[in-house]
């Protein structure tokens, strides 16, 4: 386990305090390295082997020729520093290597040495470095202190996205046998069992049955959680945490109630019992594609007409932005609906055309705010217009609760802070990083708790929900303060009044 550490003191959100640099503050922070048993099933070398330097540079060259983002971002940074105070991990840890440009420079220094004339002729002048074991270790530690949340890219005058660089760095490390245990073990489970949690089909069926009983006992209505139903209208793909953890599971019951109340037939799938796609976190196109193709297979197998995704941030980015590329074309689905749809788009549409009815008193006493998940906010969209990813979740929450307030404008919508646990960092050995990285969000939350009496924060991402459940107590809040958006819908929806 990690060494003891101090929970950061929260300042005033209005002051936007920028910490003085603490060089090396997080130099020792790193996740467990993947063992051969986690590496090899994904086609990666088991361990770091002789000659890795050359292999790494070769792979870097390949990525530079395959990704315009990487090639352009390597060249065009002017070191203006507009990003330096934007990363939640820098703000929370004060380690200068957590400033986005400094993180990029860990990679850029190697790029310059091997791929640019200036770096070959005058490495000292342009900060070019050989790829040594020390540099590799630094890469491993600091590219696992980036949650790929893209906040820095919003403020960069050239749109340089550190996420692209940390993905490339992780892919290079995987390709030489220096992978991260947490992500690669999980990807192995998706391939072997079907979901990130490694929940086998019989256990999943059991869980769903139990939940159906709970819902019937609570509401008196037989709300179903169908799975592997051929010919259903909708295939729902949702993060496996929705079957397992709170508050996720309360959200799952919300989806089921919405489908029930709307009278739309739907099904889950044992084959695609996971919306998450950790292939993105490790920057590996082929893994991301392979994981996505399960969803295509499940849709074909079950003969559904639509695909809807449950609440999950990075899953929605992969689904919204990449799924058509990775696993399309979707010409066998109903062309009247976007592929895929987000459950919030589905629910919001029903609310606005009165296809479902909500009673806010179901959430009496609650004052809500919302945490925009980074991947939803800056890597995807909902609805027909830019920014729908901000208005649609808010519309659904406001329809379900008596009072809603937003947090400070510098911390929401496109400027939202990561929860601190995204990008493949939601693992226990990184708890110090996760607590410190959540400080900017906690600061903005504290502000609305004190000023507006906020009691709960809604999240629309499985990772955010798990992260907040864990770190809220560090800041003196109840772990149940974080709720699923569809948990609020679930509390408010009127069932059995469908005509």
């Amino acid at each position, binding site marked *: 386990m990690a060494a003891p550490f101090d929970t950061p003191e929260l300042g005033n959100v209005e002051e936007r305090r920028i910490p003085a*640099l603490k060089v090396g503050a997080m130099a020792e922070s790193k996740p467990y390295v993947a063992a051969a048993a986690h590496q090899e099933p994904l086609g990666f070398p088991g361990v770091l082997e002789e000659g890795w330097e050359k292999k790494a540079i070769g792979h870097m060259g390949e990525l530079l020729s395959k990704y315009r983002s990487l090639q352009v971002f390597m060249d065009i940074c002017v070191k203006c520093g507009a990003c330096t*105070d934007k990363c939640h991990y820098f703000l929370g840890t004060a380690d200068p290597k957590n400033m986005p440009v400094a993180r990029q420079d860990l990679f850029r220094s190697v790029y310059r040495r091997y791929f640019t004339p200036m770096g070959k002729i005058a490495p000292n002048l342009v*900060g070019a470095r050989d790829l040594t074991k020390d540099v590799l270790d630094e890469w491993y530690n600091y590219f696992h202190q980036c949650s790929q949340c893209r906040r820095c890219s919003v403020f960069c005058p050239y749109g340089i996205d550190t996420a692209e660089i940390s993905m490339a760095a992780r892919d290079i490390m995987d390709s030489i046998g220096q992978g991260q245990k947490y992500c690669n073990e999980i990807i192995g489970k998706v391939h072997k069992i079907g979901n990130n949690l490694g929940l086998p089909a019989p256990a999943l069926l059991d869980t769903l049955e139990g939940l159906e009983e709970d819902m019937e006992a609570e509401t008196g209505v037989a709300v179903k959680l169908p799975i592997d139903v051929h010919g259903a209208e909708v295939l729902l793909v949702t993060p496996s945490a929705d079957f397992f953890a709170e508050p996720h599971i309360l959200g799952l019951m919300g989806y089921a109630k919405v489908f029930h109340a709307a009278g739309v037939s739907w099904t889950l799938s044992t084959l695609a019992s996971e919306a998450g796609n950790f292939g993105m976190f490790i920057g590996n196109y082929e893994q991301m594609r392979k994981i996505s193709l399960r969803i295509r297979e499940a849709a074909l197998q079950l003969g559904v007409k639509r695909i809807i995704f449950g609440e999950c941030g990075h899953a929605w980015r992969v689904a919204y932005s990449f799924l058509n590329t990775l696993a399309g074309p979707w010409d066998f689905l109903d062309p009247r609906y976007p592929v895929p749809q987000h459950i919030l788009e589905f629910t919001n549409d029903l609310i606005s055309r009165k296809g479902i009815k909500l009673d806010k008193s179901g959430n009496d006493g609650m004052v809500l705010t919302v945490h925009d998940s980074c991947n939803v906010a*800056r890597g995807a969209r909902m609805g027909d217009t830019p920014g729908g990813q901000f208005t649609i979740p808010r519309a659904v929450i406001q329809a379900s609760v008596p009072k809603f307030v937003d947090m400070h404008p510098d911390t929401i919508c496109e400027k939202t802070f990561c929860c601190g646990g995204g990008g493949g960092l939601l693992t226990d050995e990184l708890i110090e990083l996760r607590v410190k990285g959540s400080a900017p969000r906690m600061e903005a939350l504290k502000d609305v708790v004190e000023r507006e009496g906020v009691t709960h924060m809604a999240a629309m991402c499985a990772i955010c929900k798990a992260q907040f459940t864990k770190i809220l107590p560090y800041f003196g809040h109840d772990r149940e303060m974080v709720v699923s958006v569809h948990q609020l819908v679930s509390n408010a929806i009127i069932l059995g009044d469908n005509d």
Partner: protein
Amino acid sequence: MTIFFAILFMVATLVMVVGLGLKIAQYARTPAPLKIPTTPAPLTKPGVAFRLGREALMFESLFKGNKPLWLFAMIFHLGLAVVLIRHVRYFETSVGPLVALVQPLAQPAGLAMVAGLLLLLARRVVIERIRYITGKSDILMLVLLIAIGASGMAMKCLVHTDIVAVKAFFTGLMGFELRPLPTDPLLAVHLLLVAALMIIFPFSKLLHAPGLFFSPTRNQTDTPREHRHLCDWAAKLEEKRS
């Protein structure tokens, strides 16, 4: 000296044009396999052109990120733009309307450019975070630009050089004809530094100028559900798919 500068400027022009051309070709050739615009993003191509226009002319994202830096960068770049337009007169036999228009602004623009550069340099020394990320080449680049600006301003305001002869030299050079360049040390320094800047342009962070337009987070439409985006190397993976 005339021959030296004639050769230098031909080499410098060649390096800059070919180097930039190769870099731009590389950026254009390298595929962008995934849709990665930083959202909210425009849905249409005119929308993207407008977004890029705002980034290039108004530094929109930088304005969101850092107001003082935005101001310094604006002062420098606007000054530079006017100065560059103003310098076109040394390369054309009759002065065009745009050049004539900015002529009265030449001196304030030159001052703004140098002042902007000095402010940008001061940030690199004064602010701890910026000092940390600043490399030797970042300082050198600013010093080079300041020296170019200062030597130019010195000729404009203090020790005038024979600009008619300078114009004759460059218009002549453009037709591969040698005409004498005034032997003036300030002019020599100015031209030497400009040539150096041109030569390092394609190998330095000055690539941010063309690079912005190739940045996938800024130049892509947000239409992944409507249109299937598939690059060549990704399409090859599909051949194996059932």
